[in-house]
């Protein structure tokens, strides 16, 4: 199904997508409609234009490919599926996502991967090709966040306060992160060759979507950030 949505509100677009039996849907003329494909599974949605806030919220298996930028809260609380953005994204991408993958060609705003979590076989992955704003991986509880810094000029790969409150998961930054300050509840060090092999499939997927050579991308120092083990928060309290 192909749908020109330039004159439609979000609820009408989503309703039309629910109604069709077609697996493949193309939306053209998208001008910031929110909640596109929220909660859907089993479809392939191609979006031409700008996707609005909460693109693919609670996504449950659908693959969304956006040819243009997306706004805030991409993949909010997504469970399964894939979101591929040929452009930049806004703030709070992948909030509490617990499965599936998000690939962004360009940059991400503040708080990317906030409160991402993982459980058993469900390990969400977010790959950002460019750079990210402040509070990357805030409260991260699981999953893998990878930032490549391939675009975005001379700015640092991540802005201020990355990994605040991180208590699970892994974060890979393609940079030696000199001058970047991490909080004391996390460990950060240069990733080993084995650890980079672990993320090679995700880099290869990124390259399949947006071009580039995985070997070339991996041939650079990556910083790996993980939470300090133990339960640092438990020590804060005394029973009264």
């Amino acid at each position, binding site marked *: 199904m192909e749908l020109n949505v330039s004159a439609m509100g*979000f*609820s009408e677009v*989503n309703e039309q997508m*629910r109604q069709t039996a077609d697996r493949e849907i193309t939306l053209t003329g998208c001008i910031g409609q*929110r*909640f596109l494909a*929220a*909660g859907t*599974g089993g479809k392939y949605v191609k979006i031409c234009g700008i996707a609005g*806030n*909460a693109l693919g*919220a*609670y996504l*449950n298996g659908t693959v969304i490919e956006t040819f243009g930028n997306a706004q*805030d*809260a991409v993949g*909010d*609380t997504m*469970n399964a599926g894939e979101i591929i953005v040929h452009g930049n994204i806004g*703030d*709070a991408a992948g*909030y*509490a996502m*617990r499965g599936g993958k998000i690939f962004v060609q360009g940059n991400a705003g503040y*708080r990317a991967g*906030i*409160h991402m*979590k*993982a*459980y*058993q076989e*469900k390990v969400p992955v977010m790959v950002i090709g460019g750079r990210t704003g402040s509070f990357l991986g*805030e*409260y991260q*509880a*699981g999953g893998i966040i990878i930032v490549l810094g391939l675009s975005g000029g001379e700015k640092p790969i991540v802005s201020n306060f990355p990994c605040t*409150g991180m*208590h*699970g998961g892994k974060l890979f930054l393609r940079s030696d992160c000199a001058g970047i300050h991490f909080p004391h509840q996390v460990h950060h060090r240069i990733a080993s060759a084995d650890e980079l092999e672990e993320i090679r499939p995700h880099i290869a997927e990124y390259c399949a979507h947006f071009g580039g050579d995985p070997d070339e991308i991996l041939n650079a120092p990556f910083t790996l950030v993980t939470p300090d083990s133990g*339960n640092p*928060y*438990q*020590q*804060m*309290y*005394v*029973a*009264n």
Partner: protein
Amino acid sequence: MNFYPEFEVVRSDSRCIRCRVCERQCANEVHWYDADGKVMLSDESKCVNCQRCVTLCPTRALKIVKSDCRLRENANYSDQTIKEIYRQAETGGVLLSSMGNPNPLPVYWDRILINASQVTNPPIDPLREPMETRVSLGKKPDHITRNPDGSIDTKLPPQLTLSMPVMFSAMSYGSISYNAHASLARAASALGIYYNTGEGGLHEDFYQYGKNTIVQVASGRFGVHKDYLEAGAAIEIKMGQGAKPGIGGHLPGTKAVGDVSKTRMIPEGSDAISPAPHHDIYSIEDLRQLVYSLKEATEYRLPVIVKVAAVHNIAAIASGIARSGADIIAIDGFRGGTGAAPTRIRDNVGIPIELALAAVDKRLRDEGIRNNVSIICGGSVRSAADVVKAIALGADACYIATAACLAMGCHLCRSCHTGKCNWGIATQRPDLVKRLNPDIGSQRLINLMDAWRHEIKELMGGMGINSIEALRGNRLMLRGVGLTEKELQILGISHAGE
């Protein structure tokens, strides 16, 4: 610093038969048997006064009393205040408490009296006349629309229909046990009301009670996915909790075990942190976005509740929520319970639900948007009389949790945060959980609600009102006693005698 225990175990040696039930029943390990002296001994310093041993002692040989060994009396520095300072000086820790604020702050319910008919507009006998206690929660249309053929369009926004205006409020699986959730789910189902999952997800065994379940979405989004959202009859966005406004939740890794970890969808032993704010909500517009993302994901089939703590500007906050697209607002007062909250927050933050409720109802009426939303009142609704007063102050329904826990056996020892609940409610220890039999727990909840429904009908009948909806916001049925002009003005009621 060691101080004399708060409670003493008083054991009558002549009654004690050394059956050692007290020893087996106490998860705090207060009692033990001394074989040499053939006598039961106890370490009172571990006692939380949960009354488990007292209740199960077959010969009534035991009682727990408050120790009269006190620090030197001081009206300013109470024993409690001094001991709290000792605890903090020793550990450097934030004080952590459980259940609702126990301090002697005003309970407005107890200062409000209900009217009854005499001579004119006679009372109604609920045993003889039909009385309607059913309520529907959700947006009510403000005008009638007609179909092309002239008939009335009867399609309503999604509603929750309750057989009586009381529901079980949010308690997560993790904060309370599997058997406690089973009791609440079964009772809600049998009663035609609802229980609430809290922020810990929904155990797969309880999807069958979905018709009577409210699923919660909190800042940590634990256990939230499409099937979960669709499993219930309504979705509640938790913005705040009366016991800890402005504070998030934190299930320690030690409680995230087995099925709890599975239901929350986090690895075993990992801390489950629900931060204070939703990371994507900084305004009413942002709240609107979360409301609509949930509605889109569930195809507008379910009402969305927004739960907030009663705080200073609650009327303005509720006005915003009523315009956010939410169907129902739940307001939780400062006496609401909790499985764990920092003591200072619990005891000092938030406002009484009675004042908050009256202020919200008035504000929404003044703004002409009262029917955009239904209002649920929670945060220490203790009896059928409190329910009736809440409804007359403007609530559509009430949330109860502490009262529900009491029905299941809780003795309000306020030690939930230890995870060693001897009554099988606020614990994940299998040997303790099995003490709460869901057959009995659910029946006791049903009994409690049956009793309250009868009492609500009697109180309504006394006022000459035969439908609970005719009582909603009917403040003429209330009078205050011993309240100041200001308090009466906020409550919107007259003083007794006026």
